[in-house]
């Protein structure tokens, strides 16, 4: 539990002896799911139980051998993991490439007091080396140690502050999501609306055919569950979502019901933040936030296994507060964007006014989406490359798309800008990225730079009173451009110069989010 920096902890360590059982149970579950109800019907219960039993024993033996061959050790600034039965594999994970560490506890692990440690390492396209399973104590100690070792030069002070005496470092709670909101938000999804339709369909089908066999019903329900229970899975995953900041300035996320996840993300590893306003959530003016860290796999639509949540559901105040925490100096309510030229209407008949791009002091802001509106924030300091792409249709209209790539899975995309503006934007992005890097050569926001003035409400959720009115929209075009920025014809909103005093524009919150300012 001590987080002292022992640079060499040379002996090879094993995972917890119960791991094979847990792995076996997991495999068993997968196999039973694969066998399906039809097999049960055909084999009969006794035979089925026999098959399952045999598979279970096999799985446990297999996992036990795997466990015997798996080990990890911490050598200097590397975590070495060896595993594999037929093909021995030795991996050395350089800890300065560590992006975030997640501690996952599936249901069975919760019952046995174990946890799985997952490391996000840049370069790997999936979570490298899940260490499954360790005791919670071991896992959190190892996590502390790994994070302390991963901190580079400037963060070397972090471990010193992170272990006051002993025990869990005191972290400041930032925010908690009410489970009621989470439930309501997931009821407001297309799937939830489809559920009654699906149920009615199934029932009428059975009534018409009059075949009320247990197997028939069970398999239909299982088949439906796969698609329609996504909201339920999301509720289970994001249950009692809590966010905190540890003394080192790192973000600590904790959530989940059947599988709890607790994730530590150093702020300087945040590559991008995406804000999404789903269509149905606009009733409550709700939104959700996603965090992008290098090493996260590209999120598929409908694949909910990723751990990129920053806020599963929340209102604008919470979002504004969190964005300001994760990207210091960025005020969500002051992020104005300008829409693409009107002639792009040929490409986007509807959503034109919801598209846009804005260059702000530290971040590039891009917006898109008709029904579900999205806003992506990419800090200049994280830019990896800038791309300008022009397709044939875009050439006819004289427009091009500018992509700002960060190391995460998401890129900021300024779609369909006027060609001249696109070039200027690309050049400006490259210049700003260079300057941002020069300002923070390590790409790191030192804990001292994190504004201490951020309101940290102890009670969750964030009381709206802790924040100034969120409708501060700087009058577009009122501020002079900083330096040789863009040709005036390009029509960008100038970056808000050094924290604009929230001018009390009485634009309602909704009005702001739904209508980008016309430049």
């Amino acid at each position, binding site marked *: 539990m001590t987080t002292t920096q022992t640079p060499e902890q040379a002996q090879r360590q094993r995972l917890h002896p119960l791991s094979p059982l847990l792995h076996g149970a997991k495999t068993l579950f997968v196999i039973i799911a694969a066998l399906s109800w039809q097999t049960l019907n055909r084999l009969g219960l006794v035979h089925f139980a026999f098959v399952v039993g045999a598979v279970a024993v096999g799985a446990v033996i297999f996992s036990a051998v795997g466990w015997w061959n798996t080990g990890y050790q911490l050598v200097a600034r590397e975590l070495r993991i060896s595993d594999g039965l037929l093909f021995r594999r030795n991996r050395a994970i350089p800890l300065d490439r560590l992006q975030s560490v997640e501690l996952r506890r599936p249901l069975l692990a919760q019952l046995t007091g174990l946890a799985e440690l997952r490391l996000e390492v*840049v370069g790997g396209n999936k979570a490298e080396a899940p260490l499954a399973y360790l005791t919670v104590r071991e896992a959190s100690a190892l996590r502390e140690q790994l994070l302390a070792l991963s901190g580079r030069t400037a963060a070397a002070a972090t471990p010193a502050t992170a272990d006051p005496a002993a025990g869990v470092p005191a972290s400041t709670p930032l925010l908690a999501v009410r489970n009621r909101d989470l439930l309501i938000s997931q009821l407001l999804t297309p799937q939830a609306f489809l559920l009654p339709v699906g149920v009615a369909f199934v029932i009428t089908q059975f009534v018409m055919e009059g075949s009320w066999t247990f197997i028939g019903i069970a398999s239909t329900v299982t088949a439906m569950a796969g698609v329609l229970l996504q909201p339920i899975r999301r509720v289970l995953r994001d249950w009692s979502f809590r966010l905190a900041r540890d003394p080192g300035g790192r973000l600590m996320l904790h959530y989940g019901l059947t599988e709890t996840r607790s994730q530590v993300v150093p702020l300087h590893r945040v590559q991008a933040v995406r804000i999404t306003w789903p269509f149905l959530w606009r009733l409550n003016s709700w939104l959700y936030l996603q965090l992008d860290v*290098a090493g996260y796999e590209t999120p598929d639509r409908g694949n909910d296994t990723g751990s990129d949540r920053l806020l599963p559901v929340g209102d604008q105040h919470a979002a504004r507060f969190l964005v300001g925490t994760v990207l210091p100096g960025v005020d969500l309510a002051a992020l104005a964007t300008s829409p693409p030229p009107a002639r792009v209407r040929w490409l986007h008949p509807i959503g034109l006014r919801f598209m846009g791009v804005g260059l702000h002091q530290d971040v590039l802001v891009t917006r898109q989406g008709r029904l579900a509106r999205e806003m992506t924030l990419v800090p200049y300091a994280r830019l990896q490359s800038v791309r300008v*792409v022009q397709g044939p249709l875009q050439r006819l209209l004289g427009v091009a798309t500018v992509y700002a790539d960060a*190391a995460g899975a998401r890129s900021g995309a300024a779609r369909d800008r006027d060609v001249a503006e696109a070039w200027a934007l690309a050049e400006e992005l490259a210049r700003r990225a260079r300057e941002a*890097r020069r300002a923070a050569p390590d*790409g790191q926001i030192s804990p001292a730079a994190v504004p201490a003035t951020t309101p940290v409400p102890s009670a969750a959720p964030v009381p709206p009173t802790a924040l100034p009115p969120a409708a501060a929209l700087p009058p577009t075009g009122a501020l002079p451009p900083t330096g040789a920025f863009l040709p005036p014809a390009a029509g960008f909103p100038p970056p808000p110069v050094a924290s604009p005093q929230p001018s009390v524009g009485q634009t309602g919150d909704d009005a702001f989010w739904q209508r980008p300012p016309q430049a």
Partner: protein
Amino acid sequence: MPTAVDALQPWPDTVQWRPVSPKLITVDLIGLAVWQVILVAGLVTGWLLAGGWGWLAGIAAVLLLGVWRATVAVRGVRAWGYAERDNDLMVRHGLLVKRLTIVPYARMQYVDVTAGPIERAFGLATVQLHTAAAASDARVPGLPPEEAARLRDRLTALGEDRAEGL
């Protein structure tokens, strides 16, 4: 090189674009021809075995497509270009969909130099720059080996100079 691809030539006064070797056209054409021969051979066998106009139409379509792709290949090679600036490397390419990539040297993770069998026969190599972002795509094909080596060494030197994490 005065190509008609205005959109790929930003900042014509300040940026000096370097073309890739015209020999790349030959390399691309050979690669294309190999596929053409395989496809046509397959279709011809089908025609001999089964007969019918469908096969002949297929052959004609493949040949037409080949001619079109050959023209695209020729012009596509001319569209490739790269420029080394003080702080970043710029690569442009593409005819139908035009792309320009700007990669700061500081963001470079590693450099690949590859040469396929046909490329090698013509004394060409491909330099590819990798950043931490999967989306950035800075590839320069059709470089003479000495130019590829020079570019690689320059990039590596600059990358180390300004190296940093993420």
